[in-house]
């Protein structure tokens, strides 16, 4: 009994120690990465390539998911709203849900599993096949040359993807609400415009997506760079990227929402 308790306490202590240690290590890595980001901007072509891989190649999944999420929102929303005779508010419901929450969050989750995992796997494999050591041996800092462009490529791509997701979702809501169900088109758009505020809703949504972009890409490059240089090491790191960054998105979303949308007026 006591032995089991002791073992459990030791495990807990070890988990906390390792967690705190990794957090500190991650923070130092982040600072180092920011300080050595010069190359990513001086030679923007390197970052451009990563925008292509993280952003352009995620377009299809983002656009299609956005469309469907918007269509489902409109279907479900209409069911509820028409019971209270306010189906014209459908536009408001769809737009606010997407712009404030679903756009940044769902786009972030998709981005984590599509682009984040790819970034981790690529950096991890480069490490496992000694490409990063080789670079180091050629007096080229792998953080500046390999990690920083991937980081900034992801950070730039994420808000664009979230905006596209929201826009596509609203279009999907329009298709189902106006074209399919027959909600009045004028009311759909004008109520939406009256209720959606550019600064409070749209700008805050964009800020969320930027924060999620930084979080997901940082976790992805860190896990890749820190991965044990073996096949299991890289596959484990890839899984951790998806799990950790999904949790980070949801937790950050709660914090940001509390800060942004509950402060009154």
């Amino acid at each position, binding site marked *: 009994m006591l032995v089991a308790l002791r073992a459990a306490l030791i495990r807990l202590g070890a988990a906390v120690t390792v967690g705190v240690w990794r957090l500190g290590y991650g923070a130092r890595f982040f600072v180092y990465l920011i300080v050595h980001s010069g190359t990513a901007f001086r030679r923007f*072509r390197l970052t*451009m*390539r990563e*925008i*292509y891989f993280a*952003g*352009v190649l995620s*377009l299809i999944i983002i656009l299609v998911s956005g469309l469907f999420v918007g269509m489902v929102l409109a279907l479900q929303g209409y069911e509820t709203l028409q019971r209270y005779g*306010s189906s014209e508010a459908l536009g408001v419901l769809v*737009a606010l849900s997407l*712009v404030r929450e679903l756009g940044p969050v769902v786009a972030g989750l998709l981005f984590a599993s599509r682009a984040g995992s790819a970034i981790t796997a690529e950096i991890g494999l480069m490490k496992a096949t000694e490409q990063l050591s080789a670079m180091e041996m050629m007096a080229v800092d792998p953080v500046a040359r390999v990690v920083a462009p991937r980081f900034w490529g992801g950070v730039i*791509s994420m*808000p*664009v*993807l979230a*905006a*596209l997701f*929201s*826009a*596509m979702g*609203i279009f999907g809501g329009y298709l189902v609400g106006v074209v399919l169900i027959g909600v009045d088109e004028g009311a759909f*758009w004008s109520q*939406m*415009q*009256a209720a*959606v*505020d*550019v600064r409070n*809703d*749209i700008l805050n949504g*964009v800020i969320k997506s930027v924060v999620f972009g930084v979080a997901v890409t940082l976790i992805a490059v860190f896990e890749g760079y820190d991965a044990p240089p073996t096949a299991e090491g890289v596959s484990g790191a890839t899984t951790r990227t998806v799990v950790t960054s999904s949790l980070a998105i949801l937790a950050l979303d709660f914090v940001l929402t509390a800060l942004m949308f509950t402060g009154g*007026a």
Partner: protein
Amino acid sequence: MNRSAIDLWVGVFVAIGLGALLFLALKVGNLASFSTAQTYQVEARFSNIGGLKVRAPVKSAGVVVGRVAQIRFDNESYEAVAVLTVDSSYKFPRDTSAKILTSGLLGEQYIGLEAGADARMLAGGERMRITQSAVVLENLISQFFFNKAAEGGDAKSAK
């Protein structure tokens, strides 16, 4: 994948991203209808504004003609002061009245303007004299019960 193809795709990507943001700002949000138009500001005082919020619409005959720009409390008269931004293309007589109304039974609150008959028009910075405060549901209900009770009391005493 050669360089110019990547450049092209990234260009397209950023362009449609900006397009989406523009769509959100102009078509979904209300950036277009305000930042560009000329406006003037008038003041209205209420003894109670109920649940009126900044940015709530100002309507006349059901048409949105402006928005609530600012709400503050005047510590001298103990009244709420609402500053309304009205589109310059709409002019109202000086004796126009402002009411706080509710869209639907439980909907959001807005300010309704009812035009008067004065020959002079309201100018920027002026104050609307005739106002009607928000109907507060609690007051309404307690008033209702108070009246009922009073009626009951009268009936009893009449007996």
